């Protein structure tokens, strides 16, 4: 197999050099051989995938042309798939089989995609290493002793190890961008509302956003084109139609003004990441962009504000897991006892921690001091970005303060784990589009990503800068797995 991207596979499928069934078998064979090491998938669906592939072949031979016809993809296991269990990597949903497809899954299927299976995550997308999965941790294809990041670690590892051509993840505080950075793949969190959340199991509804993980920026643009756009079933989806992202990619980024927030390059950023980012910055200058220092004065308050807002929303969203209508039930002596036993045995430690934190922050007497205060700080963070974007078109900053860390390195200290998302969280609070793009390696050979951020709805310019930077750098991103 030559160039690893959706667009090149699509060309070969269209030219009939390769059938969708052959391509699907190719990925299923790789999953069988390599996934026992990587452990990216919770569920693989070979029969459904082969049936979809044969259907794609029928359509290809009758000359049908759909954006993803015959392309094998993977879905994070917190996105509902009709008839295929959707676990959220939690005991409480271990046997849950959704009666419907999420809007994004419906759109992937309508575009002709083949669904290979469901990928691992931190339980309910709460975590930064995929070690909070109730089933097993996923490993980083670049170094199996390292984490793939999280929470979309299964999707990022699957794309990196070429166990699917592209994948969907979800991003509440960095859960697409941080694992993309750790695994050397492209990860894009679109503007809040660009992609329907219907069928995404809710974590923090004002922050959650579905987005693509892929080998190239053009592939991410293609996947977003398919899954994005207004949806009457999600009242927070943005009502206007999307631009044509792929054609926007070809415009030159020359003359774009790029902001570098001074607060991001001070304490806490690892030297190795800084060195790689300096190289990326030079490449952006050489492309004819103008570099300008900007300031995000409230950046240091984003993480504490997030750890009030996200758990508060989570504690409310996760109240639905009560053992009555679906999911795990552990019987008790009465209704209250049943609720408590079900939830205490069904949720893992990180989920409980966040439910506790959120319940506390919303409880009588603390609401003003915590939830309202954090929501006011959210306003200040949005204003900081607005101020910065009055001077520059896009912002460049780290995706994560460190490269992929070792399994077990941060599991005993929740706060240390939370700090892994320090550069991605502000973007969710402000609802902005953020792209994580691999731009180099540490001395040990671990990939490092940069984050490109735009104003609300400037998804296309973010992708355009990423696409040009990717072409300029021309990195070899095959992990040493085989």
């Amino acid at each position: 197999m030559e160039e690893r991207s959706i667009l090149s596979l699509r060309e070969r499928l269209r030219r009939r050099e390769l059938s969708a069934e052959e391509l699907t078998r190719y990925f299923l064979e790789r999953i069988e051989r390599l996934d026992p090491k990587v452990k990216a998938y919770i569920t693989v669906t070979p029969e459904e995938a082969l049936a979809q592939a044969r259907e794609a072949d029928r359509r290809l031979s009758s000359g049908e042309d759909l954006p993803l016809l015959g392309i094998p993809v993977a879905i994070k296991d917190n996105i509902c798939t009709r008839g295929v269990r959707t676990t959220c990597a939690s005991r409480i949903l271990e046997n849950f089989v959704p009666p419907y497809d999420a809007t994004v899954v419906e759109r992937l299927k309508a575009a002709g995609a083949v669904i290979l299976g469901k990928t691992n995550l931190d339980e309910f997308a709460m975590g930064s290493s995929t070690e909070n999965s109730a089933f097993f941790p996923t490993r980083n294809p670049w170094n199996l002793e390292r984490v793939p990041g999280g929470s979309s670690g299964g999707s990022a590892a699957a794309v990196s190890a070429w166990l699917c051509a592209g994948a969907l993840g979800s991003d509440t505080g960095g859960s697409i961008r941080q694992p993309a950075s750790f695994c050397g793949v492209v990860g894009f969190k679109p503007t809040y509302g660009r992609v329907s959340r219907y069928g995404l199991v809710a974590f923090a509804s004002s922050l959650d956003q579905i987005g693509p993980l892929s080998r190239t920026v053009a592939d991410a643009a293609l996947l977003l084109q398919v899954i994005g756009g207004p949806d009457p079933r999600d009242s927070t989806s943005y009502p206007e139609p999307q631009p044509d992202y792929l054609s926007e990619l070809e415009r030159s980024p020359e003359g774009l003004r790029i902001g570098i927030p001074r607060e991001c390059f001070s304490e806490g950023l690892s030297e190795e990441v800084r060195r790689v980012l300096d190289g990326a910055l030079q490449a952006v200058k050489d492309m004819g962009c103008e570099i300008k220092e900007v300031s995000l004065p409230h950046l240091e308050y984003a993480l504490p504000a997030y750890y009030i807002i996200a758990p508060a929303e989570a504690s409310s969203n996760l109240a639905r897991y009560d053992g009555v209508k679906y999911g795990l039930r552990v019987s008790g002596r009465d209704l209250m006892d049943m609720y408590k036993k079900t939830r205490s045995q069904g949720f893992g430690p990180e989920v409980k921690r966040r439910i506790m934190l959120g319940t506390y922050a919303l409880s009588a007497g603390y609401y003003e001091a915590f939830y309202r205060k954090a929501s006011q700080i959210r306003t200040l963070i949005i204003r900081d970005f607005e101020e910065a974007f009055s001077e520059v078109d896009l912002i460049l900053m780290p995706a994560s303060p460190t490269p992929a860390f070792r399994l077990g390195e941060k599991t005993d200290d929740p706060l240390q784990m939370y700090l892994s998302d320090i550069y991605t969280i502000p973007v969710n609070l402000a609802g902005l589009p953020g792209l994580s793009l691999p731009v180099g390696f540490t001395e040990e050979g671990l990939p490092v990503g940069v984050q490109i951020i735009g104003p609300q709805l400037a998804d296309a310019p973010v992708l355009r800068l990423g696409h040009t930077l990717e072409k300029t750098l021309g990195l070899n991103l095959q992990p040493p797995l085989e």
Partner: protein
Amino acid sequence: MAISREEVLHVAHLARLEFSEEELERFTRELSSILDYVAKLSEVDTSGVEPTYNALRLENRFREDEVRESFPAEEILRNAPEREGSSFVVPRVIKG
């Protein structure tokens, strides 16, 4: 800003969770250290700042209340932990 063991027990009840002795000790310690960290927010003067609950500042959207097709009851009940006919079964709530 420490949270007491009693407060943890109270919040756990509100959240319909129960802990072993060991978990209780651990959650009290961990929640205290996280709350210490978020106390940093009080450094910021936010007087007169409107809170944000939706970054795109979307307004409520209304639609006509029309009857539409929904899921067949049988499909929904397939995930029920316990059912009887077309009902979910729960432990007795009213003392008989």
